[in-house]
């Protein structure tokens, strides 16, 4: 557990929770990133402007981090392009089929005590744990 970072983890989580609560308070929306992004692809019937603005905010936040806290954007592990491509397809397709990801089902759904989200989180946690176990300790 030498990489455990309890203070930044708790502080970061606090900001994530506040931002998600803010989106509910101001716009009445659940802060689920896969849903917000996926809704953008439903042009033109989606409500484009706030979705696009939220995604733009995420990217702008990334630029700020690059500037003031570059260790947050340290190089990702050196797996093959094929691994990242397959992972991206699975994450994109899976979050749309399952109606949510770590933010919508994870943070918002669990806090709303939604049985659907609890089932979704249990499912993706188990499949992620099994995947990492197989990749790191079996293959």
């Amino acid at each position: 557990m030498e990489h455990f970072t309890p203070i930044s983890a708790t502080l970061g989580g606090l900001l994530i929770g506040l931002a998600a609560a803010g989106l509910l308070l101001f716009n009445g929306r659940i802060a689920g990133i896969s849903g917000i992004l996926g809704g953008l692809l439903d042009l033109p019937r989606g409500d484009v402007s706030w979705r696009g603005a939220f995604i733009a905010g995420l990217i702008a936040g990334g630029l700020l981090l690059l500037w003031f806290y570059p260790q947050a954007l340290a190089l990702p592990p050196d797996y093959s392009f094929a691994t990242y491509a397959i992972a991206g397809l699975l994450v994109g397709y899976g979050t749309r089929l399952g109606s949510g990801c770590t933010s919508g089902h994870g943070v918002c759904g669990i806090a709303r005590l939604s049985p659907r989200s609890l089932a979704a989180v249990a499912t993706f946690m188990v499949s992620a744990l099994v995947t990492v176990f197989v990749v790191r300790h079996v293959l």
Partner: protein
Amino acid sequence: MKQALAAFFLGLLFALGLGIAGMTQPAKIIAFLDVTGDWDPSLLLVMASATLVYFLSYRWITRRRAPILAEKFALPAAKHIDARLLAGSMLFGIGWGLSGYCPGPALVALSGLAPNTVVFAVSMLAGMLLFKWNDAWLTARRLEKL
């Protein structure tokens, strides 16, 4: 316009939270998921503090008749746990475990312009489009049969 402005700044705050929490570093996510290896429990604290803040504010916010900038709250209405929910979540978990990226952190990390991050993000968008077309096709076929 006001809704878009609010969404922009909240997206920015969300991104800073992800960055400070360590969620934008795939190596840290994989270390969290690797419970039999050199386990890093940080992500548990991220989830706990984010969920606790949202849990408390949700109760307070939904007591209002409406959000500040919209006419009503748009909350998920679906209640049943079905095969789509479970199959989709399972596929998502595999991709998350393979790469250490979930959708929000991947978009935030995009600013680093690391080739691996770009490949992941483009593939993720492709996966979402694939779902959209596949879903439209399946729905059309189901309607034909009726």
